[in-house]
């Protein structure tokens, strides 16, 4: 693992919006324990990169800026950033497609979701970015929403109960700059049964008795 890739920017400075977030975050920790803020600050930096460059990742310069802010050695920030998969240490596409392929999703057709992602974006393998720079496809482990399998996480939103065609529709919508509502893509409320209530049909609204 080497950080020295050509795309690393030389400079990084937090913008005004990030500074406001950092002030809120660091207020939560005693000053001598501010190193605890490393994960929230990595998120701040990654979001800022997403905002400003359409690629939500954490360059080395940003990690150095975080280290300076938290008064820790830069390597301590590199360790954390590379440990957690939600921090991208390389540039990614505008949308980060994170397909869950763990057992529940796989049983419910995650292969179709992945295939649809590849077809719609032109990506060949996991970890790659589409040629237009719009999408990066990553294989992730269980996202903890098995009741709504299969799932595709786009940036921080879960799109649930997908199949191949609906995945393609979702990606086309994203390509157009739309952001469809997250949650189940079928007729279902959260994790409730498809098509509405299936039991206790004669009962009133919940809580009435």
């Amino acid at each position, binding site marked *: *693992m080497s950080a020295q890739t050509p795309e690393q920017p030389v400079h990084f400075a937090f913008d005004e919006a990030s500074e406001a977030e950092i002030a809120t975050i660091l207020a939560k920790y005693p000053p001598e324990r501010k190193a605890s803020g490393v994960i929230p600050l990595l998120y701040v930096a990654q979001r800022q990169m997403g905002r400003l460059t359409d690629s939500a990742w954490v360059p080395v310069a940003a990690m150095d800026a975080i280290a300076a802010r938290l008064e820790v050695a830069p*390597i301590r920030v*590199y360790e954390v950033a*590379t*440990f957690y998969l939600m921090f991208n240490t390389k540039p990614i596409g505008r949308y980060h497609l994170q397909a869950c392929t763990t057992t529940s999703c796989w049983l419910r057709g995650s292969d179709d979701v992945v295939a649809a992602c590849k077809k719609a974006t032109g990506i060949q393998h996991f970890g790659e970015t589409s040629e237009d720079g719009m999408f990066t496809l990553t294989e992730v482990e269980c996202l903890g929403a098995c009741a709504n399998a299969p799932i595709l996480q786009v940036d921080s939103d879960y799109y649930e109960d997908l199949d191949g065609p609906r995945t393609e529709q979702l990606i086309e919508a994203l390509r157009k700059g739309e952001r469809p509502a997250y949650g189940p893509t079928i007729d279902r409320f959260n994790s409730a049964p498809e098509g509405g209530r299936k039991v206790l049909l004669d009962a009133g609204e919940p809580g009435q008795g």
Partner: protein
Amino acid sequence: MVRVIVDGTPVDVPAGSSALQACEAAGKEIPRFCYHERLSVAGNCRMCLVEVVRAPKPVASCGFPVAEGMEIKTDTEVVRKARRSVMEFLLINHPLDCPICDQGGECDLQDQAYGYGSGVSRYDEPKRAVTDKNLGPLVKTVMTRCIQCTRCVRFCAEVAGTPELGAVSRGENMEITTYVEKALTSELSGNLIDICPVGALTSKPGAFQQRPWELKKTDAIDVMDALGTNIQIQARGGEVKRIVPRVNDEVNEEWLSDKGRFAIDGLLRRRLDRPWVKVHGKLQAVSWQDAFVAIARRLEGVPGSRIGAIVGDLCDAESMMALRDLMISMGSPNLDCRQDGAHYDVSDRANYTFSSGIAGIDEADALLVIGANPRHDAPVLNARIRKRYLEAGRGGLPIGVIGDMGSDPTWAYESLGAGASALADLMADGNPFLEKLKAAKRPMIIVGQGALTRDDSPVVLKACALLAETVGAVTDEWSGLNVLHTAASRVAALDLDFLPAEGGRSVRGMLSGGVDVLWLLGADEFPVHGIGPDTFVIYQGHHGDAGAARADVILPGAAYTEKQGTWVNTEGRVQRGFQAVFPPGEAREDWRILRAVSDVLGHTLPYDTIEALREQLQVGARHVTARRSTTEGLSDSVLSKPFASSGASYYLTNPICRASATMQECASVHAPHAAVAAE
């Protein structure tokens, strides 16, 4: 004390000890990789598993605190099986490249695989491979061999104080790296090679040079700084192949500076291996006898007052004493050991040594550093300051600095000013740092060469003494006014009174024609170009450096690895090193050269053997004589310029380093302008 029972034997260990320490106290060997007694406990290798009675499963003894009555079993089937399994896991991703690995023969993994492993591997899937890292000119990496014990990470962060190594990524992808490629900036980086239990971190300059069992091992003393680090010289076929530290808790614990470890290639280059005499402006190789005759001819009729002698920074006490005795017998009052023009108060030995002792740092509870840069002057001593600093906790050890620190000293400090005037400011009533020093029970003041090599040094030294008295740094049971030397020979030379006698000239006075004949014993660090053009220069030493370049006669001497000798470190500890290899060519031990030349000069020295010489060797104590530390030409008022830290690169402070290709490379990698350009 807590009583625990190890394999049926009761032992008493201090409360807070770990189970591993209890087992060691009971004489049981516990295999380990990640545990190191001078580093924090990580507990990630799992090799030290033992059985604790009533514990549901084997416990990692390195991180398991003892409790009263605890019963530990280190030799049961459960323990043996656990060790075998851990070993098997560790070897899953470890390459079988022992035949080409420099660690082979002294590898913890190899030894423990023999001792505790199962002997067969059930693993036939592909092993992981890891990219090697470039950590600079000293430490070679073969990262596939790494077992991720994180000793190196902890050493960098804790002992060296340069947190540059870390473990990035996780699981199978975890790697030890600097992440951003860079050379390690620590002056202690060579110790990573020693603490790495496998062959992941090995010596880059020494790669593929030798096997540990081929080396002849000789105990010696490091001369690259004034700390007197205890070293072991490992040689093969008359060549020093490696230098490693020996454990001495009073001096160097178990660390060695990079200069002491890696300058050894300088011992083979630019060596003076035969006598030379300048004839008609050109040096000609001659025999010893001819060289002696040339010296005797030139000295004929020269009065003692026109003869001078300067000793260098690496000399052993024996040769300095022989030169001193020769000079005295010729009637010369012009002796000096202070190439840098330092001023010392030689009235009492405590005034020119690190009188609290190096181990005294462990007890200090406030520290003032004046004109010193411990990280460069003595990196191992600096690690001790850092250890104390970390141990004392946040704000527990207030440190003030007067002078320019240059690089990060690896501990937090308060800058109190740059020059001698800051001392006066500090003495002002109500100065907050003065109050901290006064409040401390064992305040320590470290005075470095930056404060002692100035024209106003006598005044500065007096001010330091006054300050020490004011804050209670010098009491009956605590002597906290310390001088940090940079020259390995200096304290012995001061003990031997290698100073100008009444009416004698100092180094400065001997320049510009102050003497007619000048004897340089390994002296290269003073302004050699200032020697008068008519002065006849005899250079006795081991390297063709500045002194030899100016010499009229060159007498080839022995480097510190090639002679047995006595050195006195900055705290005044008298230590003896032994001869590991022979000097090259016709070069000889320095005291023998002086003994031989004294015969030709008609001033035969009264000792024929080194034992006889040592009977008269008076180091380790101050013997008051007529000699004095001259203050001629020195200022009696405070000058405004700041305390200068030595301008030379850490890696190039003496002739051996300057001849070393490794040290030259380090100096260029860590050159200040390179650092600025990188930022």
